[in-house]
């Protein structure tokens, strides 16, 4: 890579005569013109907006966030009353968006990976069903899919009094899905601690196993042992804590359920709608990633005597992930941004709450800025994480 010739060529052309035909001069002139136009447009927009706001006597700034929201929100992960502030209402919306996005990303990844692998299956029926899934899901607009899921619950599910009861304590009705949850007991908190300890122990054990294999050559069943630690620790804690089994079971009282935990029809529709839609794209990403790994890699690994499991784990997957991760990132971002479709079925996500706020206060610029800022933050967070991961698995090419 020498650039000497290029440098010499440029030197010969740069004289002192200023001409519009000189690429450097031309570039500067155009850039100045464009910057000028942008500044002018910006000034005009700001001026106009301030003018309009002043005429309608709307105060600019984020002071309104302190004021009482005085509207109710259907579901919230934190305590919320209409008496709370707009700021807290917005926080409820952000948390609801995060809830749908995080769970949605996990569900979509699981379904997408399974469907993507199924498309490559040698089982004709399985492969065809998987293709059908991908084609249908990718070609129907996501908003329509949300309406379908929402209708499935609210229209075709029975009323509360006739709720469908597939398992003891589990009820399916127009009001969503009701499941029993364990009654509060300090043991549950300790089990969460035990789970974290189990995860930490599994990580430590993986490092130990790697070091031991390097030393003695003996491999250790890391996967199985990790599962044992991660699930065993909480189980042990539960047993030691007296194995509490009291459950808060939902039951019908009047026209609705009391007790248990709820998955609302809105949450169900947005979660499954988005997961199933995005899974169609993820399936294609996963399939193309696996196909992209040359068959020769598998043959080379197998001809060295590696088992099929080790071939997949040590040779094929690391290379497939390299192809999968960048487009997977954009699917995660899509899912997060598409969660704003929640507005259409009444799930109180960040857009829907910000919308109500804007209608009540007229603070549309601040509201939209907050929506954009939040999505930008979430998206950048996902991108940063995925880029970091991608860099870790990137290849050194010639």
């Amino acid at each position, binding site marked *: 890579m020498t650039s000497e010739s290029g440098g010499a060529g440029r030197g010969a052309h740069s004289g002192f005569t200023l001409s519009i035909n000189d690429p450097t001069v031309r570039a500067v002139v155009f850039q100045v013109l464009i910057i000028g136009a942008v500044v002018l447009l910006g000034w005009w927009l700001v001026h106009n907006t301030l003018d309009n706001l002043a005429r309608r006597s709307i105060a600019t700034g984020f002071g309104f966030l302190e004021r009482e929201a005085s509207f109710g929100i259907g579901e919230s992960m934190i305590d919320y009353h209409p008496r709370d502030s707009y700021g807290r209402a917005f926080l409820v919306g952000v948390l609801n968006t995060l809830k749908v996005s995080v769970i949605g990303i996990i569900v979509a990844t699981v379904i997408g990976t399974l469907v993507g692998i199924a498309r490559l299956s040698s089982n004709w029926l399985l492969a065809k069903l998987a293709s059908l899934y991908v084609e249908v899901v990718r070609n129907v607009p996501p908003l329509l899919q949300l309406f379908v899921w929402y209708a499935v619950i609210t229209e075709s599910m029975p009323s509360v009094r006739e709720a469908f009861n597939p398992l003891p304590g589990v009820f399916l009705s127009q009001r969503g899905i009701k499941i029993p949850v364990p009654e509060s007991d300090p043991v549950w908190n300790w089990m969460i601690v035990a789970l974290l300890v189990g995860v930490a122990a599994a990580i430590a054990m993986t490092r130990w196993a790697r070091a031991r*294999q*390097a*030393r*003695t*050559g*003996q*491999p250790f069943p890391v996967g199985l042992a990790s599962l044992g630690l991660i699930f065993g620790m909480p189980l042990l804690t539960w047993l030691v804590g007296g194995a509490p089994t009291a459950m808060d079971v939902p039951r019908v009282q009047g026209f609705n359920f009391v007790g248990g935990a709820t998955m609302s029809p809105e949450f169900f529709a947005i979660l499954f709608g988005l997961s199933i839609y995005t899974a169609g794209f993820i399936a294609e990403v996963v399939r193309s990633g696996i196909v992209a790994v*040359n068959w*020769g*890699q598998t*043959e*080379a*690994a*197998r*001809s*060295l*005597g*590696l*088992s099929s499991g*080790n071939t997949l784990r*040590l*040779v094929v997957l*690391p*290379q497939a992930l*390299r192809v999968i991760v960048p487009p997977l990132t954009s699917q995660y971002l899509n899912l997060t941004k598409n969660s704003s479709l929640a507005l259409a079925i009444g799930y109180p996500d960040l857009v829907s709450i910000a919308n109500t706020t804007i209608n009540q206060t007229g603070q549309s610029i601040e509201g939209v800025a907050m929506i954009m800022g939040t999505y930008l933050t979430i998206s950048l967070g996902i991108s940063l994480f995925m880029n970091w991961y991608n860099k870790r*698995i990137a*290849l*050194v*090419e*010639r």
Partner: protein
Amino acid sequence: MATTTSAAAQRQTGTDAIIQCVGVHKWYGEFHVLKDINLSVRKGERIVVCGPSGSGKSTLIRCINRLEEHQRGQIIVDGIELTNNLKNIELVRREVGMVFQHFNLFPHLTVLENCTLAPIWVRRQPKAEAEATAMKYLERVQIASQANKFPGQLSGGQQQRVAIARSLCMSPKIMLFDEPTSALDPEMVKEVLDVMIGLAETGMTMLCVTHEMGFAKSVADRVIFMDRGEIVEQNTPDEFFTNPRSERTRLFLSQILSH
């Protein structure tokens, strides 16, 4: 590499053959790729397989480590018959190294990691030991100084030498080569052939599909000529080149030697 031929092989075949193909047939759908292949390779024997493109050379050597399945006949390698028994197939593959036309190095691993992967996960060697062995073989193919580079940073000839070292790290009893030099630029062919000649001198059992007739003349004990899925002729290199018996062999030789 000197180990005694397994007793089982001797019992089964009555010879000191390390590879034994008896009446092997293979089809791809309707297409009959291998027709009644009978081949016996002695320990330490160096065999060159040649023939026109599409004659089934690759298919034959890929059957020997079961990358391809044969449908009729018997293939016995190092005393183990190749059937659908996966355990046996993996046992055979440990003892049979394979070098591919397109190298097939693992691009996500360094040269050294390429060489230690199988010894660590298949032979269960401690890492330090596997690395020491790998360095020894990388030294032998004269590429030790590149041990920490990735395959993508090496030339084709260098990659093929790494691929040979990677196979040797499993201490195989047999080495299979499928046109190891045909994807290389001409100036790199020699460095790979030199490594293969060096390997032949250690007494390794080698089965090479190649059109490098110079290599065949200087190291092969036997040259096998295949055409349309059959072994048409096999002979010592001297006889094979100076006095081919069949018309098809003569035609083939006139074609490749005229280049």
